[in-house]
């Protein structure tokens, strides 16, 4: 990499535990989750809002939740967090935008920040807060009637539709997200048994990790997994107090027999079952990013450097293949070999999809998704990219390793990947 080029560092990263649909965060809108995550990221970064100017707030969210305030998201979150941290003129007045790249939204918020920080000229930023949040539990039923010409308040009769489920159809290519995984899995020679076994492994890894998960009440050094997670201590809309410390989707009584008896979603012989697909989940993640020089100058410690990112396209009908070109292109862009990478995090949208990617890229299983993935923890769509990056950074640090790549397939036929390096 050119030495003159500016480098981007992750000063801090935090994520909420992931809630199951209808679970912990059923009453907590995506915006509230984002407020908690951003506040935690700022507190973890240790930056003083009176001294360090926040240049930009970049939000990521896909599905409109019950509050329907997605359009105001970055400013709302900035203002609410500023109020919580007694800030008057920094974060409170920071400009913000919302970005969207389906399952890659979590990477996109980092990519946007990367571009801003590495830019030259008047748009150059030094410190950016990126966050991504999703509450799939609160996605609405939508009424598809259009406004009438004679009155702006009048709508045509139309059926109501499930906004979340509508998104799983890619109508132009007449395909469903699970179908893409089925097709891709079969193309790469994955069997149902492989899928069930992988799903089982994902849960088992997540269970083991949770047993050793960091918690603020324990001083013990054995409990140092998933330090990206912070405990959510809050009150939900119904006025109930809430303390969430772990990912809710992890199934403690998982067993292979039950998994193998589940009915495939798309007919006999299909690879995707409720047990081998990622879960519908809620959660948020946030990171504070800075120009490396700026951070060094101000003596701000940081976790990792973002080496680069890459988005590549594939055939939409096998969108799950996305990580394959994305990781290859990224390695090429950074002049690296796959063996240079110490840990991989590849989002488990579907077991069949992940296994296909694993096979094509030749990923070593002991180096990939070491703490379980979205099949066990959940796939809170927009936040997933940032969630796995956060977990990757902390896992690299915990193991004393250096380089890691986080990647995910993106609906519509894309793949995203990001490379981080611990310093």
């Amino acid at each position, binding site marked *: 990499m050119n030495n003159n080029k500016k480098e981007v560092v992750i000063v801090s990263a935090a994520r909420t535990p992931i809630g199951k649909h209808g*679970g912990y965060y059923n009453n907590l809108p995506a915006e509230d989750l984002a407020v908690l995550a951003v506040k935690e990221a700022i507190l973890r970064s240790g930056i003083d809002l009176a001294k360090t100017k926040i240049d930009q707030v970049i939000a990521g969210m896909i599905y409109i939740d019950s509050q329907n305030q997605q359009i105001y998201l970055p400013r709302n979150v900035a203002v609410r967090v500023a109020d919580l941290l007694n800030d008057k003129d920094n974060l409170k007045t920071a400009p913000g935008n919302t970005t969207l790249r389906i399952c890659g939204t979590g990477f996109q918020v980092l990519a946007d920040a990367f571009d801003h920080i590495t830019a030259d000229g008047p748009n150059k930023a030094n410190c950016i807060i990126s966050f991504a949040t999703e509450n799939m539990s609160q996605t609405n039923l939508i009424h598809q009637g259009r406004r009438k010409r004679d009155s702006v308040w009048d709508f045509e009769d139309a059926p109501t539709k499930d906004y979340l489920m509508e998104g799983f159809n890619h109508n132009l290519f007449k395909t469903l997200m699970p179908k893409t995984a089925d097709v891709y899995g079969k193309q790469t020679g994955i069997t149902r048994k492989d899928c069930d076994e992988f799903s089982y492994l994902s849960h088992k890894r997540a269970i083991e990790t949770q047993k050793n998960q960091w918690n603020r009440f*324990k001083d013990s050094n054995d409990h140092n997994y998933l330090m990206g997670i912070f405990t959510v201590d809050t009150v939900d809309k119904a006025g109930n107090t809430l303390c969430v410390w772990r990912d809710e989707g992890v199934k403690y009584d998982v067993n292979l027999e039950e998994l193998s008896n589940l009915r495939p979603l798309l007919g006999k012989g299909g690879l995707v079952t409720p047990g081998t697909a990622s879960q519908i989940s809620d959660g948020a993640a946030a990171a504070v990013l800075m120009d490396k020089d700026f951070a060094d100058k101000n003596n701000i410690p940081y976790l990792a450097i973002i080496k680069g990112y890459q988005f590549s396209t594939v055939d939409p009908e096998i969108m799950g293949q996305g990580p394959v070109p994305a990781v290859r292109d990224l390695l090429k862009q950074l002049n690296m070999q796959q063996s240079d990478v110490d840990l991989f995090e590849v989002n488990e949208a579907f077991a069949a999809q992940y296994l296909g990617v694993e096979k094509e890229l030749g990923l070593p299983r002991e180096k990939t998704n070491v703490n379980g993935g979205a099949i066990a923890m959940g796939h809170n769509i927009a936040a997933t990219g940032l969630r796995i990056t956060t977990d990757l950074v902390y896992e690299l640090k915990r193991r004393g390793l250096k380089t890691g790549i986080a990647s995910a397939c993106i609906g519509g036929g894309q793949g995203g990947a990001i490379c981080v390096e611990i310093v």
Partner: protein
Amino acid sequence: MGTCFSFGNKILQKEAARLNKVKKVALIGTGTMGIGIAIDLLNKTGYEIICIDISDQALDRAKNEIGNYFTGMYQGGRIMEDQLAAYMGRLSYTKDFEALANAEIIWEVATERIDVKEIIFRNIEKYVDQSKLIFVFSNTSSHTTEELAILFSDSYLRDKFLTGHGYFPFHANRLFDVMKGKYASEESFVAAVAFAEQILEKKVIALRNDHHGYVADPIFEGMGAIISWDIKTGQDLVELPQVFALLTANPFEVLDRTGHMPYTECARHMGKALPADDRLRVVYNQNDRHYPQWIEDLEKSGKIGINSKDKEGFFKWTGPANREKATLVYNPETKSYVEINEINYQDYWSLSEAAALDHRASSIKSIEGLIKISEADDKGGKTFRRYVLPIMLYTLDLIQDNHCTVADVNTSSKVGLRFKYGLCEIIDGFLNHFGIDGLIALIKKAGCENPDRSELFDVDGKIGPRSGKPNLLYTMKKKGWKNLLGYGRIYGTPVSQLNINTGDMELYYCDLRYVHPTKKDRVASIIFDNPLRGNVWNRNTLDQLDHAIGVSMELYEKGQLGALFFTASGTGMRMLGADARQFNKGWFDAKIGYQFLGEEDASWFTKAGMKLFRFIQEMPIWTVGVFGEKWGGGAEFTYFLNQRFDVILKGVEFDSLTRTNVFKVKKNYNQPEIEYAILGGFGAVQELVRLGFGESLIDELFMQGLTAERAYALGLSNGIGENEFELLERAFEIARLKQKYAVPYSMALYNQQKKNAFYEGCNDDRLTQETGETFNPEKNPYITTGLLRLLNMGGQNAPLDLTPRGVLPGWKNNYLQLYKD
């Protein structure tokens, strides 16, 4: 029921399966409560119970008391010798915390001191096997879940930790609080509530948020604390608490029975820990003390109530065990016991007037009487306003602050504190009499009367702990809400409660549990669960069942319900008959002597019950009942259901031939009316004829009862089984299968035709007469939903059509008329 059944609730299903497999429970602490819990668990479950205590003395006492209890049961002929041995065999005592490793449920019942609890919790953390553990209960009266959960450093244990609190005496008082707090997981909460509700057979107040002392405790403690500072002489201890004796009992007499320690410990803790906006905070923090010096003097000198050596506490008690009476009262001035003087009529005339108003003379007054007292200007009125009004305001605070619902307060006060009328019913009575403005004026008047305690009477949110929070009464006024509770049609007892967050009236059944149908199953469950008097038919039950049936009909009209599943909670799933205390007993009036229950009053109950049961019989919803022992009205009720399932019960019974107690199969159907010379109430004889019984079988049933097996052989019972859980599952499955035939009108039509055919034979002309149309399916619902339709469909079932189509012709007892006045 002893086993845990999910009634179609999917989350509970998983937890219930785990609860039904529990084998070992560990009780930490074997004090008074620990012993009570051990006895209750032994009685109601088949668990092995490990009693853990650090003191040999406590363990010995537990061994003795539990042993005595069961030996007494054996000597009284209630259990057999081998049962006694089995009970004792399930108990083990140890000082070693290592025994926790095998426990599936851990119940900490140690003292209220946090340092003691901390040591215990550390031991739990050290020895427990997390893969086995379902939840940990702590029986605390004043700590919150959060205060205790943080004693665990392991997040998994915090997930599984809840406070579960029973009331003394544990086996007799059916109130039980479960508090979730912010740490416990939803699964633990669901499991704990189901455990308390179904296995311990308690009335559960399930609180999601932390509150010091749940609901009942702070009210009871408050009742004592608010008076305690005003007690100067011994006579004050007799006179001032009278106002609480009007509602339930003199709190100081109760404290003498339970011991003073829980009160003093709680007062100390609450004085320190209550949040700043707690109205009663001041009564625990006065003169730099949490409770008055004289109570501390009493405690220090070992005078802590009936169980102390000299039977001395606030009162001196004499008389045989368990029948003690207060003969002398403690005088804090002289620190000695003095005579209890007669109460001066001139000072407390309003109490006597209220007694005259309330013709069923007893120390507990009707709401009408209380209103009379609250308006009076004598000492009675003044003490009422000084002590009772703040407690009423405190109740409103609890509801306003989302600590609990209206139903929680009402049930807690009725079941736990034995109020004759729940606190919210009393507030409603006052609201009906005075109106909201009138009640506010009364409170303000009381505030002026008591300038030394004006913060207790704050309604405007101006002074004291409640400043900034205008009382709930103002919200009610603004939103046009008249009452906190909704009342039933037959006897006007509470059946619904106001949700102050939404303004809707929600179900509140104190004596029933109503489980809403799921979209998939379309089966609602009604579980008879009377916390005070067994599962009897009384005014409340009738009102609540009537309301529940109305609610079910509404759901049915919307297509959300097709079958009703009835069962009874409690050991042996027992359903009793009419509450004889309410319906067969007269009352004594000083002026006119003993008054018998009038024919009008007595028959109204029968008529109301019959009308309701007939409706249940004829309504288009399929009904299935699973019961154990059924007595009188309880058995009669089941004759009106579509299907009956019976649990085969075994127990000790007196054999009149051999004149000995024998362990044998019990009778499920019992109709002892003739033996007891009570007239049959709900028309059992007629119903039995309808069910195909001849005279000789009816005689058999009335004279000697039927066992489940006999009833099954005769066709009265549709299914029998020994295992409660399996029978419930089977019967619920039948309800689930039957619900789909309860398409509006088809079941009613079927019943109608069956009845007509039974009495008159087949009569085609009737169809024409009733409908005016024989062959037009548009106009004749008999055709659209009947056999012709089925034939037209090629012998296949018609798809579900859930739209109601108006009134069924010829259906006289139509629910639209019955349920929409």
